[in-house]
């Protein structure tokens, strides 16, 4: 395959590409879902093909196909260059870089593919079964997913790389119902490790806990509205890191001056307790990558350090535009989709508070628990996060469970009110789109943080 890709690169160069790369990717996935004790999905997926990029000026031509014969690849190479010539974008040339070579395996002690499917199915069935703890449980769901993606990349710098990215994920989701009311709860375990990750957990206990929390939610009350003291849990803290500060720190948004964080390097943007990073090298992180999809090694980028804004994430192009190296954040959903500056594992670092210390200072407030979703707002710097649920805090004590809560406000206003940052960081896996498509695996996280945030819910 490397020879075919190198030939494609040569054709693109000979046809006028100023920079070009050729990627072959093959992804294999296994998904198992059991719902209400019935198998609902047992599927294997294979996606394989070639994506070719050619850059002329600041415009890209892109061609992709599942066909991997030499003739098709050569025709695609010419097509990519023709397409690049149809663009009209000015751009800074991507500076020459040393060629990178090598072959790198996924970091899994027990590769998921080495474990019999029957064992995985038994695990999923057990997780589903464990959720049926009461007549109030209406619907149980257990989902297992594993993936292994192999990328072979060559480019006009002479790089020739082959590497693997492997992921694993297990989810329990319970729906409880009583007296005409329905509520749900979920737990998940995920990472770029092998089966050793799941073996650390008592999965029956995970199932029971999920179901118990779904039943607790049947008694939840409407959350308070307006500006409140809010202790965000690691998932919601992570959403603030990812959706607002993270997306707005993606180099393409900065080059376009679309981000509210443009020209903010060196300025105080948060309370001094706040440090935030994007770290593609995080051991086992769901968003961790060996190389980005342009063949740049992943790295740790400090975005906020002790409250001071430090910098941006880059791919080859935005790095060239801003005169800095790529941070290894050029990512694409697959070989058939566009490359963007994307996050990996984005999180706030630990402070020195315990959750108990944070709660005992609060007369009236809320404590969130898990996210449903959030939305980026790089232009306005707005934060919108939907928490799956929360708890009321009254006179220093956690009291009633709350239904879903939407949190909103300006991110910088929120971060300046953060007066307590927790000791323990945890991460949650997700899938991040840019706009409404181009999904890549990421994680976000942080510690419990106490801030003033506008809340609302029904």
């Amino acid at each position, binding site marked *: 395959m490397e020879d075919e890709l190198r030939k494609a690169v040569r054709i693109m160069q000979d046809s006028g590409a100023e920079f070009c790369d050729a990627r072959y990717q093959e992804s294999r996935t296994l*998904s198992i879902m059991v719902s209400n004790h*019935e*198998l609902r*999905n*047992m*599927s*294997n*997926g*294979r*996606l*394989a093909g070639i994506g070719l990029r050619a850059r002329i000026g*600041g*415009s*890209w*031509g*892109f*061609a*992709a*196909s599942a*066909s991997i014969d030499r003739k098709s690849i050569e025709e695609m190479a010419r*097509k990519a260059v023709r*397409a*690049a010539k*149809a*663009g*009209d*974008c000015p751009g800074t040339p991507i500076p020459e870089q040393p060629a990178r070579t090598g072959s790198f395996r996924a970091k899994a002690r027990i590769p998921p593919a080495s474990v019999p499917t*029957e064992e995985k199915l038994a695990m999923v069935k057990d997780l589903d079964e464990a959720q049926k703890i009461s007549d109030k449980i*209406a619907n149980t769901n257990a989902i297992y997913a594993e993936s292994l993606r192999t990328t072979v990349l060559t480019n006009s710098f002479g790089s020739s790389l082959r590497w693997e990215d492997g992921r694993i994920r297990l989810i329990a989701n319970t*729906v409880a*119902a009583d007296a005409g*009311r*329905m509520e*749900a709860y979920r737990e998940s375990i995920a990472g770029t490790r092998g089966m050793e990750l799941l073996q650390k957990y008592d999965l029956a206990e995970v199932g029971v806990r999920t179901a118990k929390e779904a039943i607790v939610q049947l008694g939840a009350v409407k959350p308070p*509205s*307006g500006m409140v003291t809010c202790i965000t849990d690691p998932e919601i803290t992570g959403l603030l890191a990812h959706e607002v500060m993270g997306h707005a720190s993606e180099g393409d948004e900065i*080059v*376009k001056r*679309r981000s509210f964080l443009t020209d903010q390097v060196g300025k105080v943007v948060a309370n001094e307790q706040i440090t935030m990073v994007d770290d593609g090298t995080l051991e086992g992180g769901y968003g961790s990558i060996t190389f980005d999809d342009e063949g740049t090694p992943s790295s740790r980028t400090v975005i906020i350090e002790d409250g001071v804004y430090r910098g941006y994430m880059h791919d080859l192009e935005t790095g060239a535009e801003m005169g800095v190296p790529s941070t290894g954040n050029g990512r694409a959903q*697959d070989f058939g*989709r566009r490359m963007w500056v994307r996050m990996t594992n984005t999180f706030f670092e630990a402070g020195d508070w315990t959750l108990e210390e944070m709660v005992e200072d609060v007369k009236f407030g809320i404590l969130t628990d898990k996210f*449903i*979703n959030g*939305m980026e*707002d790089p*232009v*306005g710097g*707005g934060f*919108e996060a*939907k928490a799956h649920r929360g708890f009321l805090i009254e006179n220093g004590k956690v009291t009633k469970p709350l*239904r*879903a809560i*939407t949190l*909103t*406000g300006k991110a910088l206003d929120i971060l300046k009110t953060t007066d307590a940052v927790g000791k323990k960081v945890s991460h949650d896996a997700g899938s991040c789109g840019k*706009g*409404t*498509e181009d999904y890549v695996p990421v994680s976000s996280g942080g510690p419990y943080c106490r801030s003033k945030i506008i809340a609302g*819910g*029904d």
Partner: protein
Amino acid sequence: MDIIEMARRALETAVREGATQAEAFAVDSVTRSVYVDDDRIKIVEEKEDQGLAVRVLKGRKLAQASSACASVEDAEACARTAASLADRSPSSRTYDRFPSPAKAVLAAAPRDKRIEHLDVGELVELVKSTVGAATDRGVKVPRGVLRAASTTTTVMNTNDLEVTNLGTLVFAGYDAMAPGASPGEGVGNLNSPWLKDYDPVRMGGDIARQALQAREAKALEGSIKAPVMIAPGELGEMLSYSAAFALSAESVNKKRSPWAAKLGESVASAAIDIVDDPSDPRGALSAAYDDEGVPTTVKKVVENGVLRTFLYDSYNSSVAAMPPSGNGMRRGTHDALFMFQNSLACRPVNLVLKPGRRGPEEIIASMDEGVVVEKFAFPTVNPYTGAFALETRLAHVVRRGSIEGQIKHALIVGNMYEGLKNVVEIANDSRTVGDMILPSVAFNGFEAVGSK
């Protein structure tokens, strides 16, 4: 070898591997896209795609494998994988047969011949028109995409079923930005089977207007308890999370649809009529067959506010002992790429909410007080309860029949299932949004909560 022949070879392989039934969903598509970055043409792309999803039944043991197919070996390997997984699957309680052949009752999928023969240069010119219409108003277009795809999907199975849907798809998505100390953002989306539905100048003008209005929008002080009218683009997403979820037999069979026990009962205001209409040529997924090869039909799902039926794919029809309604879907509305990867889902083909008589402007003129939401940050609804609290990125405040000004960052709080029972008026500005065609709707019972 073409993908149809590969699908046949996959079925033969599955049977050799012990399948009692086998099904292949074969996709062949060509996608052309043009991306804008900062008012300029950034990426031009052409992508070809072919692949298979193979489902195998061994008795009642069901499994699936999918694969991109560059050769017949890929197709045969895909079938062997599905057959091997089926050996490991526990038996379904009810499902033992893929659909049988049946004659189509509706017209074939809408297919735009202009897209089949499209030159990517034509897309480039359309995008430039959109960008020009926005920049003429002093607004930047930081990013956008216009995509046109032609797709051929074929379903065949060992019951001698073989059907083909030929379709086309247009998707556009743009962000606009009005620069300034507090920039405003406009967002425009379109999906349709027809390229003629993409009016480049109107798209550019609309995102520019939104961006300029969003720049001037103020934070809401206090709250407003008055009718809230929601634009089709946002309402379509909200109903997809709520009504479409509740109508799916998958949700009903799993006992998590809030409408599970409400057949024949009122679930909405009498003004609400919802039809799943795969014959509507505006529908992005309209077709004569679903993605299991079952003929699609026009179904009144909510009639005068009364729930009439749920939507069934073949699996959920076996669980509920009902005939399948042609709602086993794999195809998507935004992108034709790698559709063979999509799991089969029990969902609408094309939900159509019957429009009212008056335009949004006339409805606004008759409001004493109200809020018109044009853009939410992310319009999701809790599917089990219907609850939502959504941040507005652009909304209009109405007083005494006129738009008084724009607000942003307010929360609209309410419950969509309750909202459907409290419809004030349905407008006549229907448009296609994902797998729905719907107009703006004004609701009672929602509240706008200010950020100050």
